[in-house]
C-alpha cells in the first residue's frame, strides 16, 4: 500500500469567498484604504492652510461641503464604525487582558473603558473645534 496524500490548495485570489468570517475580515482590512484617504485629505488640508491663502482654504472647505462629499463622509463613517471601530474594540481584551490578583478583569469592562476613552477624546476634539 502506497501513500499518496491529496493536497487541496487554497486559492490565492478567491480564498476570502470561502465563508462569511473571511469576508468580514477582508472588509475590515479594506477599511485601511479609507484610513489612507483621510491621511492624504488631512495632509492636503494642512498644506492648503500652510500656504496661507484664504481663497484656497475657503475653496477647499467648499469642496468638502458638497452633497456628494457629505454623503461620502457619512458612508465612510458608518463603514468605519462597523468594520473598524466596533470590531477592534471588541477584540481589545484579547490582545490586552488584565489580571487583578487571581482573576481576569471582565472583557466588558475593558471594552467599556475603550468606549469611554473614545467618547471623552471625541468630546475634547469637538470642544477644540468649537462644535460643543
Amino acid at each position, binding site marked *: 500500500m502506497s501513500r499518496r496524500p491529496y493536497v487541496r490548495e487554497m486559492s490565492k485570489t478567491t480564498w476570502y469567498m470561502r465563508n462569511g468570517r473571511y469576508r468580514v475580515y477582508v472588509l475590515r*482590512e479594506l477599511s485601511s484604504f479609507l484610513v489612507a484617504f483621510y491621511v492624504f485629505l488631512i495632509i492636503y488640508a494642512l498644506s492648503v492652510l500652510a500656504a496661507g491663502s484664504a481663497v484656497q482654504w475657503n475653496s477647499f472647505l467648499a469642496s468638502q461641503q458638497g452633497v456628494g462629499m457629505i454623503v461620502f463622509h457619512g458612508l465612510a463613517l458608518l463603514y468605519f464604525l462597523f468594520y473598524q471601530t466596533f470590531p477592534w474594540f471588541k477584540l481589545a481584551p*484579547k490582545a490586552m487582558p488584565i489580571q487583578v*490578583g487571581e482573576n481576569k478583569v471582565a472583557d466588558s469592562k475593558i471594552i467599556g473603558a475603550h468606549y469611554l476613552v473614545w467618547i471623552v477624546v471625541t468630546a475634547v476634539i469637538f470642544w477644540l473645534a468649537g462644535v460643543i
Partner: protein
Amino acid sequence: MGTRQLELEVMRYDPEKDEAPHFQTYSVPCNEDWVILDAINYVKDNIDTTLAYRWSCHMMVCGSCGMMVNGEPVLTCKTFVRDLPDKVRIEPLENFPIERDLVVVLDDVMQKLHQVQPYIVRKDEPPEDVEYKQTRGQLMKFKQLTMCINCMCCYAACPQYGLNKDFIGPAALALAHRYNLDNRDQGKSDRLDILADHDGVWECSFVGACSEVCPKHVDPAAAIQQMKVDGAVEFWKQRLGIPGDKS
C-alpha cells in the same frame, strides 16, 4: 425518541484508486440526540466498512474527530444532528493533505508543535526534593491555553495557514504562549527566535477564525496578539538595554 433521515455527503479519497476526492452520499436514520460522529459510525458499521476516519473518546477530550461539517471545522463528537439541516456535507479538515477519506496528514503541525518547545525549560538546576511552586494567580494566567486538545480545527479555519504552510499557526503558537506565561519556565528567549520570525506571530493578521471555531475555547488568536505585544516590548527593552522579564 424520534429518528430523522439524514443525507450525509461524505468526501471519499482512496489513494490507490482515485485521482481526486469525490463525494459519496449515505442515507442515515439518526436519533435526535446523535452527534455527527454517531452518524458516521453508523455508516461504518452498517453501510460502508471501507470509510476511513479518526475518532477515539467521543467526549471532546482526544481531539481526533475534527472534520469539516457543512464547511465548518468542528469536533464531530460535539456537533449534534438536531442542530443541522437534513443534508450534511462532511469533509476532511481543510488546509491539510488528505491521507484517505476523512483522514488528514498531520505531520506538519506535529513538527511545528515540537518546534516551539512545548515543555518547561529550565536554565538553572531544578530544586532538590521540592516541587516548583505556583500560585493560583500564576496558574490563571495561562490555564485557558492548557485546554487545547490538538484537534487542529484552528488550522483548518486559518486562511493564513491555508495560504502559507510555513506559518507556525494557531495551536502551536498558543502552546508556546502557554509556556512563556508559566512562572516555572525559563525558555521564553529560546522560543523567541521562532515566534518572532517571519513565519511566527507576525504572519497572523488576526482574522480570529481559529478562536471562533475552537471547541475548547482556548482562544489562540488572543494568545498570538498577546505575543505580538510581548515581542514588541522585548524588542524595545533590548534596544534600550533593559533586561527581559524572563531569561
